[in-house]
């Protein structure tokens, strides 16, 4: 947690070089197996809500609410017999379970027909039909996705979310790079104190600046526009400046000194010497901002509440789920998955850069 220059931890710390490999003993293997199984169970539990959400998003309200509904999208099978629809049940006959359509329900005996062999006519089965389990077929529905696409105005909200994220990304990357360069390469009185102030803003409760800031944006006529979400991004933020500065401190000074001797201005040096070497961390800052902006809820909530057509996905989704009763979990989960898919994919593509960035901002402060 000291503010020291350190080269960022290289990529993923894969396994440490082990001493000369000897054959693993039986107990080591057993240990390793048990621990890995533990991790599998934990991670399965940790991510199971995603699976649950995924399964629900393909189910109709009837499929979800049926008694003893399985976890997958399942509908009761039916069979048309002599012009009428009958439900199909799993019936134990002669020691085997067969799918039979229930034509006449009875408490002690029922009339059944075999959909595979309707020509055989009705079969009488002894026992209460209520004890039978319905035969289910795999019947996923895509209606939730098409409905939520329309009801949530998804394409519009997706565009808004992406536009706000990308414009903010440009502002964040440019402003934070400039400020980090100032902190990393120039000596001036008060630099240490300014840096300390910068870092301490991380710990500041947002409420203490919210009221006047909102008021100013209101007086400027910016409430109901994207400006309150975009403009502050152009004035740098503590996390990203810190991340960039730490990285810049590790770039040898010889190169920018050489550039300076050749007559390059400080800005020129930044663009042609520092930026090309700081790409990995600049990308990290960009991804951080995209994910942060995509997931931001409070900002769009307070500044865009009067303009649903300018709203972002996060707030749109929250309002959508608040306005719908819990009768339609499939619909809400489909909207949820459509909201989380972009940041999750971005993370999976850039996971190395992303996690390295978290390490630097988190550990070295």
């Amino acid at each position, binding site marked *: *947690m000291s503010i020291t220059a350190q080269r960022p931890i290289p990529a993923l*710390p*894969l*396994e440490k070089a082990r001493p000369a490999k000897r054959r693993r003993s039986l107990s*080591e293997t057993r240990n390793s197996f048990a*621990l*890995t199984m*533990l*991790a599998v169970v934990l*991670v399965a539990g*940790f991510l199971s*809500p995603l699976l*649950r*959400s995924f399964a*629900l998003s393909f189910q109709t309200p009837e499929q*979800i609410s049926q008694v003893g509904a399985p976890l997958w999208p399942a509908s009761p099978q039916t069979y048309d017999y002599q012009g009428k629809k009958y439900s199909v049940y799993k019936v134990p006959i002669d020691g085997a379970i067969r799918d039979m359509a229930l034509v006449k329900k009875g408490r002690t005996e029922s009339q059944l027909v075999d959909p595979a062999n309707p020509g055989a006519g009705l079969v009488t089965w002894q026992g209460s039909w209520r004890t039978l389990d319905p035969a289910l077929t795999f019947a996923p529905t895509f209606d939730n996705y098409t409905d939520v696409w329309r009801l949530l105005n998804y394409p519009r909200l997706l565009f808004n979310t992406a536009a706000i994220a990308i414009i903010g990304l440009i502002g964040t990357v440019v*402003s934070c790079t*400039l*400020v980090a360069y*100032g902190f990393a390469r*120039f*000596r*001036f009185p008060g630099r240490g104190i300014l840096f300390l102030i*910068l870092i301490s*803003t991380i*710990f*500041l*409760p947002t*409420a203490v*600046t*919210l*009221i*006047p*800031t*909102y*008021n*100013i944006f209101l007086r400027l006529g910016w409430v109901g526009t994207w400006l309150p979400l975009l403009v*502050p991004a152009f*004035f*740098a933020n503590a996390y990203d*400046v810190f991340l960039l500065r730490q990285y810049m401190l590790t770039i040898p000074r010889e190169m920018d000194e050489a550039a300076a001797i050749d007559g390059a201005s400080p800005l020129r040096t*930044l663009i042609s010497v520092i930026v090309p070497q700081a790409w990995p961390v600049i990308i990290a800052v960009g991804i951080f901002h995209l994910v942060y902006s995509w997931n931001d*809820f409070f900002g769009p909530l*307070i500044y865009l509440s009067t303009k649903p057509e300018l709203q972002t996905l*996060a707030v749109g*989704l*929250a309002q959508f789920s608040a306005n719908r009763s819990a009768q339609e*979990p499939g619909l*809400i989960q489909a909207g*949820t*998955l459509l*909201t*989380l898919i972009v940041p999750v994919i*971005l*993370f999976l593509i850039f*996971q190395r850069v992303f*996690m390295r960035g*978290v*390490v630097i901002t*988190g550990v070295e402060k």
Partner: protein
Amino acid sequence: MIALRRPRMSRLAWHEARSGLLFLSPWIIGFLAFTLIPIVATLIFTFLNIKLTQDVPLRFVGLDNYIALFGDSQVWDSLLVTFKFAAISLPVAVILPFGVALLLNSRSLRASSLFRILFFMPYVVPFVAGVLIWAQMLNSDTGWINGLLGFVGIQGPDWLNDQTWVYPGLVIIGVWGIGGGIIVNQAGLKGIPTELYDAARIDGAGWWGQLRHVTLPLMSPVIFYTLVLAVVEVLQYFLVPLVLNQGTGEPGGTTRFFNLYLYQTFFSYQEMSYGATLAWLLFVITLAITGLLFWSARYWVYYAGESSSSA
């Protein structure tokens, strides 16, 4: 000041300082406009009777807002709610990432980088999406959590609608946020020199002994950092209940958090001055608690660099 004895800045140094400040200027302007001036304005508001729609003449009211604060039972009730929730959620927010990081760092674990990605991934899920997904899991009839409890013969509670179980329920909803903490803890664990474990083993320390006498002391700065951030965060907690039940405070006022009250005072009742007073109260409480933590750090946080020279 020392500057008295120092010769005047050379032309070169002056040049350098000017460039540096020029590069800093976006942040300095932003800091003044979006942080410093608003903080001061918030403080000034607390002595006025400003409303968003100023329907009464603006005037100086002295300490009226602060006096109102002490007579306002909603302030103390919502603070109590916040502290109750903090008491349950803070240990989880600190211990869980540490525990997962220990697991991920174990040399016996296969495919640890895959597990690391999977444990981190939910961290990037938009928080609204996470809340809606977990609310589904916690549903008393169809949720998998009660399904699992039912499987082992326990009748699960109606988590989010029960006055007792709502806090554990909210902690469960927050569990997808531990990714950052895992990564930070893991990096901290990797920084512990292996010689120390070798030495501890030679001294006869088992797994627990090594954890107790090597890992925990050396990890205390990281634990301290996660704790401070978690405290600042939990004091501002209110967005999850806002999404779950639109800030009604259900069940039975148990989710009327302090920051929710602040938010409603400002946005619903448009009371800027009173809202500002609440914001300053929150600020002072945050400062007091983090200050207390920093003071306590000298007794339990071990900085290797301070006493002896070490990496």
